């Protein structure tokens, strides 16, 4: 019977822990540059509101969510592309940026 303690899962967990440790170590020694930090904060908030589209439809809630999402998402597609280009030789930042969707704007 497969359990959470299978070798594959242990290896996966170990790999995740190693990657997280490497990321944290990198962050500790070189904090994100202001442009990167600003992007990460804005896009995280943008992504939060993109996950709040009301269902079933609720026009008032949609207006609230839409206003917030548009405010935080605006321009982030271009910023993401530029940051990926700028940090293409930095594997830590490249991995951070890989988690974001390429296009969230129309």
């Amino acid at each position, binding site marked *: 019977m497969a359990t959470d303690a299978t070798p594959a899962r242990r290896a996966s967990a170990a790999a995740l822990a190693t990657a997280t440790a490497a990321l944290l170590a990198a962050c500790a020694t070189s904090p994100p540059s202001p442009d990167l930090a600003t992007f990460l904060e804005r896009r*995280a*908030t*943008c*992504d*939060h*509101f*993109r*996950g*709040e*589209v*009301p*269902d*079933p*439809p*609720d*026009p008032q*809630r*949609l*207006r*609230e*969510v*839409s206003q*917030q*999402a*548009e405010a935080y*998402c605006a321009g982030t597609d271009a910023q993401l592309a530029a940051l990926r280009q700028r940090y293409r030789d930095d594997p830590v930042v490249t991995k951070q940026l890989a988690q974001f*969707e390429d*296009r*969230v*704007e*129309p």
Partner: protein
Amino acid sequence: MTTAQATAAPAAAGTAPLTAPPLPREPSGRAWVGRFPTSASVADCAQPFRANLTAFIAAMGAAGASINIAATLRPPQRAYLMHWCWSIVKQKVDPRAIPPLDGVGIVWAHVDAQGGYDPIASLAAAQEMVEAYGMQALNVAPALQSNHIAGTAVDMAISWAGSLSIARRDGQVVRIDSQPRTGMNPDLKAVGATYGVLKFVGGASDMPHWSADGH
């Protein structure tokens, strides 16, 4: 208009299939919008958030608060449908390029009577879905990943009258006399945190939202 349909080969007599047969494929359109609905049930949340939220709501209920849950889990299948119909309409994504999702036998790319790709019918069907989801005015792509999709978030309206005497996770009862008498009350947020249910960190910009990590 016709749509290509996949067919599943029947399993040989007396043998069990090794994998589930492919789902029947069905063209995109309004009919999909009624499927995989967003839940308003705590029971659909993921553990341990489910247990934490259940305990927090029980504590609020025992204290006399009124709780109205609008949303908990948004199934990833629904997130997929909402995201890609919006992308076809608003971003002009080619329906033929949309990645499939296990368990969702939707055909985004419609075909005409000759079996050729029909971009007009494909777009019209996606537009139907956008309208049925109420997303015509939405100018950002609905998320493919979120705490709601992971089952670790809830949108709920909370209110009470007078003061609220509520138990923290450790059993200690705290009396809340502060205002507002809603989920935005800072003392109630502190109580929620003892249960592992965290108010959205972005302040009043998303008043009903609580989650496992405050996002």
